């Protein structure tokens, strides 16, 4: 019970620090708006974003009927923008979850066992980090075919090594600490040491990595969709820009381009602000500086 309340206390201090950080608060607020938008898409969106409309409604500028206007198939831009948040956030959160879990496992095993295991795993990590990310994602996405789940798979496949590397160097220093030694002395096995003693101390780092990975995954989804590798039936912001770009009328239809660009940039900038704030707060000595 004491341990639990200790954890809750730690978490509340962390959150208070994060929200008193100007960048952290700004980032968190904007992200919350987008999360709400994604949850309540069905209420906020006026029509089905993929439903094509009547010929006379093609490329309408914003009006009371179509708040953000329509595209070249008379689909409603407002609804596309609202529902687009679902795709971006789903890809971001799911890909980051897969990336951080698999990266942490590899980093933990490599750092804990050392020697041959570490050598092999880290060579694989180095190899993946050497490959140019975007071309690799493009090739994989093109081969696997267009779907949101394939994009999640591709992004996770390409981005886990960064986390593995960061976690490994943390584990290397953690496993030499007295508390691990003490646990080993009273007979704890490798699994117990890795997951019971070391892993809990890596969690703050995993959290920081997750935010970075979400940012990268959202970016990657937008680029891949823009290049035409997204699922044409579930329209993401990158996909909207792809359609606008292909239509050849983007110059005349600013209302078609502005909402997805503003959304993508706002979401990515917010996540980077939040990420910067989190790494500031996790920095040793920050807590004391702010008087906690």
């Amino acid at each position, binding site marked *: 019970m004491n341990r639990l309340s200790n954890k809750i206390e730690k978490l509340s201090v962390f959150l208070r620090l994060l929200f008193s950080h100007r960048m952290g608060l700004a980032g968190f607020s904007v992200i919350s708006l987008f999360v709400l938008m994604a949850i309540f898409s069905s209420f906020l969106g006026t029509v089905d974003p993929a439903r094509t409309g009547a010929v006379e409604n093609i490329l309408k500028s914003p009006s009371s009927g179509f708040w953000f206007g329509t595209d070249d198939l008379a689909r409603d831009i407002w609804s596309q923008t609202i529902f687009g948040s679902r795709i971006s956030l789903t890809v971001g959160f799911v890909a980051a979850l897969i990336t951080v879990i698999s990266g942490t496992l590899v980093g933990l095993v490599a750092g804990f066992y050392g020697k041959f295991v570490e050598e092999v795993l880290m060579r694989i990590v180095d*190899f993946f*980090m*050497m*490959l*140019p*990310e*975007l*071309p*690799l994602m*493009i*090739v*994989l996405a*093109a*081969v*696997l*075919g267009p779907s949101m789940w394939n994009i999640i798979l591709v992004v996770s496949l390409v981005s886990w090594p960064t986390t593995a590397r960061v976690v490994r160097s943390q584990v290397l220093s953690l496993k030499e600490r007295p508390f691990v030694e003490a646990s080993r002395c009273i007979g704890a096995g490798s699994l117990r040491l890795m997951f019971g003693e070391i892993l809990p101390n890596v969690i703050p780092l995993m959290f920081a990595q997750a935010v970075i990975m979400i*940012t990268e995954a959202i*970016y990657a989804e*937008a*680029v891949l969709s*823009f*290049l*035409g*590798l997204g699922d044409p039936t579930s329209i993401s912001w990158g996909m909207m*820009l792809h359609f606008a*770009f292909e239509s050849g009328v*983007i*110059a005349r239809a*600013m209302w078609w*381009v502005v909402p997805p*660009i503003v959304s*993508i*940039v706002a979401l*990515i*900038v917010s996540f*980077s*602000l939040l990420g*910067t704030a989190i790494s500031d707060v996790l920095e040793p000595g920050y807590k004391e500086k702010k008087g906690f």
Partner: protein
Amino acid sequence: MGLKGFILRKVVAACLTIVAIVCVNFVIFRMAPGDPVRMMFRDPRVSAENLQEMRQTFGLDKPLSGQFVAYVKGLAHGNLGLSFSHRRPVLEVIAQKIPATLILVVTALMIAIFLGVALGALSGWKSGTKLDTFVLTASLTMYSIPTFALGIILLLVFAYHIAIFPLGGMATPASLLEGPELIWDVLWHMFLPALSIVIWYVGEYVLLTRSSMIDVMGQEYITTAYSKGLKKFRILKNHALRNALLPVVTITGVNLGFAVAGVIEAETVFSWPGVGRLVYDAVSHRDYPLLQGVFLLFAFSVVLANLVIDLIYGYIDPRIKVST
């Protein structure tokens, strides 16, 4: 160990990476759905016998091991297969596009590195001031905007609405310009795509140089230089910046992988006739051989560039000569 051992180790590592890339490339290519021959000749009137003949020509009737040997042999001779959409050897298609990409990348990177290092050094030097906060926030924001989104904004504003720059391409079509006029025309076309790459990159270099500068400024030899009574600018130039640049050099290699992304995005938005735009075209035609060829090119160039940078680093950092 010393410098020789360092060089040898780096060269061996680069060679192994290239071998691994070749293998991965082969595996991904076999994962592609559908029959490659069917993809190339989509016309349903092509008879089954003809398709079988094509399979034999391309060696697709052999077992996987045989295909791998043929693929490696072809690669060694510079044979990357035939492009589905161009109906020409992939290598020929790519080689034609390389100069345009090189011009764009080299120009953009040079400007970005120069600006980024200068701003980052200034920001790190004056860390904690209003100027520093401004440069830092601006860099973080610039670094977060996807290049293609920035490109579309620049295109809409400066090529459509205030039409002071061309809509795309590398030169005015059928203009028959020569000499300095042609160079001027290309520079005019390059401005917006280069700018969209530069803006992203400057942010990255500012952040790097700044943090490295702050590290160096806390070192004792800087205090020594101060107590010797040296001028501030001289300390900045000769003592601090010189050492702060070491990590910036290493990261340039790592960054080339990201630069490739910027190039693909910028070239696509501005129809720049380079390798990046080729990726977009290959994707829209589902031209797998071309896509694979471009991927190999990018991967090889990143590995080689990293090797060169590692070697330069070994040369400029005296610590490598004495220790491992």
